[in-house]
């Protein structure tokens, strides 16, 4: 086979990962990213539809990963953060193009398209959105 990561597992989420597409419940108005398949607020009364979110937000907490998991060793140290998007939902990703002073709670950031993980020499390349300070 020559590669380890699952192709369908990655492919299934391409649209929501690349374009920051979440779901919105038309019953309660809540917006979810990562997308939810069932509205956790309304449950059976909920009706979810796709919504493309603005790519801007702010850091609400962060850390710098120095002891990396398998596949990320070459990139360590790298900052990770929980980011609150301007549209509301919070997500987790890496911070790029950063300086010391950018790693601050409240720092404004915007999404940018980057490689996330490369499955060795033969496997596919996983892309996604990371965030850079504006």
């Amino acid at each position: 086979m020559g590669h380890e990561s699952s192709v369908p597992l990655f492919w299934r989420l391409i649209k929501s990962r690349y374009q920051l597409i979440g779901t919105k419940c038309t019953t309660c108005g809540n917006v979810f990213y990562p997308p939810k398949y069932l509205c956790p607020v309304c449950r059976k009364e909920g009706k979810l539809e796709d919504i493309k979110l603005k790519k801007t937000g702010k850091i609400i907490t962060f850390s710098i990963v120095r002891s990396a998991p398998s596949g990320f060793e070459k990139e360590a140290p790298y900052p990770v953060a929980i980011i609150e998007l301007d549209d509301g939902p919070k997500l987790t990703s890496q911070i790029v193009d950063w300086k010391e002073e950018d790693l601050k709670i409240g720092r404004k950031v915007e999404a940018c398209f980057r490689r996330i993980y490369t499955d060795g020499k033969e496997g596919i390349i996983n892309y996604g959105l990371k965030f850079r300070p504006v």
Partner: protein
Amino acid sequence: MIGIVGYGGYIPRFRIKVEEIAAVWGANADSLKKGLNIEEKSVPSMDEDTATISVEAALNALKMAGIDPKEIGAIYIGSESHPYAVKPTSTIVGEAIGCGMEYTSADTEFACKAGTAGIQMAMGLIQGGYIKFGLAIGSDTAQSKPGDALEYTAAAGGAAFIIGKNNIVAEIEGTYSCSSDTPDFWRRDTVEYPSHGGRFTGIPAYFKHVISATKGLMEKLSLKNTDFDYVVFHMPNGKFPIRAGKMLGFDLNKLTHGLVVKKIGNTYSGSSPLGLCAILDVAKPGERILITSYGSGAGSDSFSIKVTDLIEEKRKNARKVQDYIDNKEYVTYARYTRLRRGI
């Protein structure tokens, strides 16, 4: 009238100076800087590649064009450093910018002119009435063998152009190309770094094609040197394009603004395209731009581009090339090596 509906560039943040590289190899930085007419080059982050650079450039172009990405009917991405040998960069970009499924696409390779070839392909489909808008991108993360002369110039960056007939910011008045089997610079499959013919890359390769294509274009469109306000040629270094300008009899001041190579290096398929974007960022309505790309192997695409009244308003929507040039962080050779080893 067919032309550019929106354009955008992207240059990674890191830079390495000629001095920094020269020190490692015991070379004379001053004479290199003079000889190549280059100060520093861009270096991509470990998580950047031709696909990510293309996406950023395309998003800028989309912002300027103000169109629904689903209206893009064709995507052509030209590069020497596509992330996959088999699996198109163009669909990764198409997905990332929201083009839906109804488009044709292909990756192109023709050394540093793969991007401009894509512009011509998009023009053809539009003029033929097959599509409304086409996206053509020239983008690279160029590799060079450590210690080789190319190390001072091989850089990373890209530019995207949305071609169409509606609300164009610049008209493509015409295009002229020439091609020949001239092996001046090449890379065999599975080999890591390219090879080149040294001084052979000059007169029989670069100059022959750039000059022929430019002369051919001007003849075809009945234009003379003085009809152009700006000129940009492919920039393998800061010397070749100036020499080509001299040989063609252009006022060399016209080349200054597009000569982005001095501060970012040779972005290969992104080279003359980024120079064009830099010029479009400042050009005034009615001004005329000449761009001639060059791809080793070999060939040149030459275009005459005339700026319209729409440009001043529309270009406010996207980030300027100068912005990317100015937004930089220097790295040491050690860090450069680490970044280039890649993921």
